[in-house]
């Protein structure tokens, strides 16, 4: 089943696509370790937010994702 990692904005470019599959369970360190190198470096930018199953995390370090969960990596927005 795996953990679905959704990449938004320019993070999708760094990943070569909008989505990755990793194996759970995953904490923040485990997630970063599983990302392609360019993306792993960018993911640590403190301006990026993380959501699990559509709920934003106050702190990336608190990430806990299990098989079947969806993690989203969200760079700063530029809407409107």
């Amino acid at each position, binding site marked *: 089943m795996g953990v679905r990692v959704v990449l938004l904005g320019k993070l999708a470019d760094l990943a070569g696509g909008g989505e990755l599959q990793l194996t759970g369970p995953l904490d923040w360190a485990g997630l970063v370790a599983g990302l392609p190198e360019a993306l792993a470096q960018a993911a640590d930018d403190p301006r990026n937010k993380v959501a699990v199953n559509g709920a*934003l995390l106050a702190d990336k370090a608190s990430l806990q994702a299990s098989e079947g969960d969806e993690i989203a990596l969200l760079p700063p927005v530029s809407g*409107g």
Partner: protein
Amino acid sequence: MRDIRLLTEMFIPGALVGPFTAANPGLGGVCTFVGEVRSDGDVEALELTHYEPLTLPGMHGLATQAFARFDLMGLLMVHRVGLMRPGEPIVCVSAAARHRRDCIDAVDFCMDHLKSAAWFWKRERRAGAWHWIEPRKDDHRDLARW
């Protein structure tokens, strides 16, 4: 009366604002902002990506804040996603209220927050190549007004 929409196809703001105004009988004023894709020199197209589990709840949350903060009768908030050409509308926010100040301020508030706090990512195609747009410093300054 609250009407919040994410649209994947081109829309005509007047076709939304007319019925919205009519749906709020007794209003004193309606303020509407429409943002369009600017024809900035060599911009060929604009693409707006969003993260669906956050976008629409985020817009509803913003509408709830606006209703709590201003004395509104109705609020229309429509945002395009997907691929757009210069001259096409991206966003339309319309507020109906008994008094002028509430509807103008509500539109101003929603636009400041939509630009900087909603979950949209924008990129432009110039000379065939896509470029991501970063949030502008102005947007943060605008947010600090509220």
